[in-house]
């Protein structure tokens, strides 16, 4: 066999392999994820992807999937890059046998890209706590779900926390609240809400953009040092988070007046700054830590069999849990879809209905081994955001762990409501969408 034949055979084998792989005829539930394990956002992308995958593998190993139907997890590497995200989406959306049942873009930019496509391709988008905030309006965005809370709800929650620390909303008057944000669609999301609240509560607001990838922030923090804001909020992601926390530490900005979005509050973000990060705050909608029954099941059914995606001792990190909770809600939506439509061979269309009728209450969380992990979520036709509650967690550098230090704040719906209404109406007008009746 000469080289040419050998290459020919290799190419033929490569082309033939996927055909054999998909030859299995049992129905499977395809759950794709767009991950990023490369590039400047990998430190945060990896734990989310691991938590998500491990939970699905655990269901497969422990229960044989969802109601006995195996889950087929398909991942695709985007590097947090929109172009690669488009390629990935086109690649995985028709994966046999069920087609993508729900898609997790894990990037606000890619979510924006996919929102118009979702209704055409009939793939529900589950952008859990990111993406387009006004997608909370289910009348205009029937295919997009962003529960359990949006960035705007979170912005109002963080301001409520600040008000609590300062002694009421009246005490906000004249205070300076700055926002350090990733200069992208993601980072700009909260600005309008923070401005609206600035008008209402009388604090002084200012946004300081940080360009992708976020390693260069000296000027930003010099400005903060000069102007001495009372509170700094941060909408950061990837390497930007660690740099910001280190910079804040180097200008001795009080860490307990520095609050990150829930994407800026994981172990990866605070560890590089060492003890100086002690007291740093961030938003949260689920508990940190790896002591829940679900984690025991993951260790037993996944890691003991050598199927784990990541390191065993990183189970329970904040972003790992974020991935786990996303997988939980996705699989519960599929379960619900099976229940509503009375079939085990669900499609994307069914799962959309499942998301819309999702109701994961305390008792259900307890059954899933996630009692007290997060709050109950109930989705309706018009409200795709769900409860929208956000708590604040704090980093304890000595014990190396996050602790939730506040109650779960209800969002200020009188502020976010009209903004959501206006933004979704603008989308509907631009794209010729007729809002449906709910």
């Amino acid at each position, binding site marked *: 066999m000469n080289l040419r034949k050998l290459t020919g055979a290799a190419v033929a084998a490569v082309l033939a392999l996927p055909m054999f792989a998909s030859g299995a005829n049992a129905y499977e539930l395809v759950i794709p994820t767009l991950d990023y394990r490369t590039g400047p956002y990998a430190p945060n992308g990896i734990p989310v992807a691991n938590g998500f995958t491990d939970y699905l593998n655990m269901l497969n190993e422990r229960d044989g999937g969802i109601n006995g139907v195996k889950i087929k997890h398909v991942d695709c590497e985007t590097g947090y890059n929109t*172009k690669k995200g488009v390629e990935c989406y086109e690649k995985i959306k028709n994966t046999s046998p069920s087609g993508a049942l729900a898609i997790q873009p894990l990037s606000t930019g890619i979510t924006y890209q996919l929102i118009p496509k979702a209704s055409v391709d009939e793939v529900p988008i589950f952008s859990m706590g990111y993406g*387009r905030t006004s997608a909370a309006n289910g009348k205009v965005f029937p295919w997009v779900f962003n529960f359990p809370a949006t960035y705007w709800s979170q912005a109002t929650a963080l301001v409520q926390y600040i008000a609590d620390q300062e002694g009421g909303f009246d005490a906000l008057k004249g205070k300076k609240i700055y926002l350090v944000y990733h200069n992208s669609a993601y980072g700009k999301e909260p*600005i*309008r809400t923070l401005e609206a609240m600035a008008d209402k509560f009388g604090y002084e607001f200012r946004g300081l953009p940080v360009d*992708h990838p976020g390693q260069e922030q000296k000027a930003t923090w010099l400005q903060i040092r000069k102007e001495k804001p009372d509170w700094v909020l941060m909408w950061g992601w990837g390497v930007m988070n660690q740099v910001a926390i280190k910079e804040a530490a180097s200008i001795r900005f009080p860490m307990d007046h520095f609050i990150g979005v829930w994407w800026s509050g994981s172990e990866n973000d605070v560890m590089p700054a060492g003890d100086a990060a002690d007291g740093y705050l961030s938003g949260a909608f689920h508990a940190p830590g790896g002591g829940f029954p679900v984690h025991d099941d993951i260790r037993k059914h996944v890691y003991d069999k050598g199927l784990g995606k990541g390191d065993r001792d990183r189970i329970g990190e904040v972003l790992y849990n974020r991935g786990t909770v996303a997988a939980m809600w996705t699989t519960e939506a599929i379960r619900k879809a099976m229940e509503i439509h009375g079939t085990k061979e669900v499609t994307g269309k069914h799962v959309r209905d499942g998301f819309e009728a999702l109701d994961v209450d305390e008792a259900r969380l307890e059954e899933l081994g996630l009692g007290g992990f997060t709050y109950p979520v109930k989705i309706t036709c018009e409200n795709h955001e769900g409860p929208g509650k956000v708590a604040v967690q704090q980093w304890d550098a000595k014990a190396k762990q996050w602790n939730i230090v506040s109650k779960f704040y209800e969002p200020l719906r009188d502020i976010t409501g009209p903004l959501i209404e206006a933004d979704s109406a*603008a989308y509907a007008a631009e*794209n010729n969408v007729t809002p449906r009746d709910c």
Partner: protein
Amino acid sequence: MFYRESGQLKSSYISDQAMFPIAQDRWFVIGVLALAFLVVPFVINEYWANAILLPFLVYALAALGLNILTGYCGQVSLGTGAFMAVGAYASFKLVGFFPEANFLIVLALSGVVTAAVGMIFGLPSLRIKGFYLAVATLAAQFFLVWMFNKVGWFYDYNLTGMITVRPIDFFGIQITGPEATPAAKYLFTLTVVAVLALSAKNIVRGRVGREWMAIRDMDIAAELIGIRPLQAKLSAFAVSSFYIGVAGALYFAVYLGSVEPVEAFDINQSFYVLFIIIIGGLGSVLGAFLGSAFIVLIPILLKNIMVGGMGFGSGMAGHVEILLMGMLIIFFLIVEPHGLARLWQIAKEKLRLWPFPH
């Protein structure tokens, strides 16, 4: 034996000056175009259109634009990303102002706007050369992207600073947005790219193209034989920016649908297109297509082989892909520093003798 021009006698000026004087070349190009226009649209699916062919065509067009400036006129530019952004934002605003306008006109106007901007940023080329000019165009890159992100007028004051294309009809067929069929998007883009590529081929072998090449090879000598550097250089910037602007508008409207300025048009985009023309071949129309195929398609091919065929994890495959891509680029640059187009030329020379080399 099969590829040779002996016996192809030219009896008129027209046949002597034809774009592809060798019959085999002519038939090859016609064949490729026929395949692309008549066969591909019927077999294309969304994956092939949105993930493979549209980026390939759009980047080929942008590379063609940069090749006119850098390959033919010798002016190094690092502002390609920004000029693509100008084209994209121009088309966004134009569609906003004139929703009923034919999209071809919008594309042409976007190109004209970009050409104007390109000429302004090309003015320093009259005084500075080489790396220094590259740095001057870098200013365009950073300034323009910053401006599109900062000034609300460009993105219609929306919340996120992203621009999203409206659904556009082209003679009754939708060509943008999610409802557009892959074949419609592909055919529209292909038509624009094919027409512009053939025009480029014509421009560069005419008077203007020869002026550019004279400037590239030695500007003082060119000036001495009567070529005005001002006109030659600025026309190169204008034509190049026109192409890049049209590519940017297609990139935004047809390929991606919505873009974020900092991510979609950052400095990496400029390097990306520059790599395409370096790998493909400076000063070659074909090179733009070969380079675009190499830089856009090989990573996707590698990924699909590693993930689909060999069962790699997606993260692992991502890292190996970066590694292999780097190695391939170095390999090709060592084997043929003049790019893939030069390899093609060598292959053609060998073909004259094949299969009887002695």
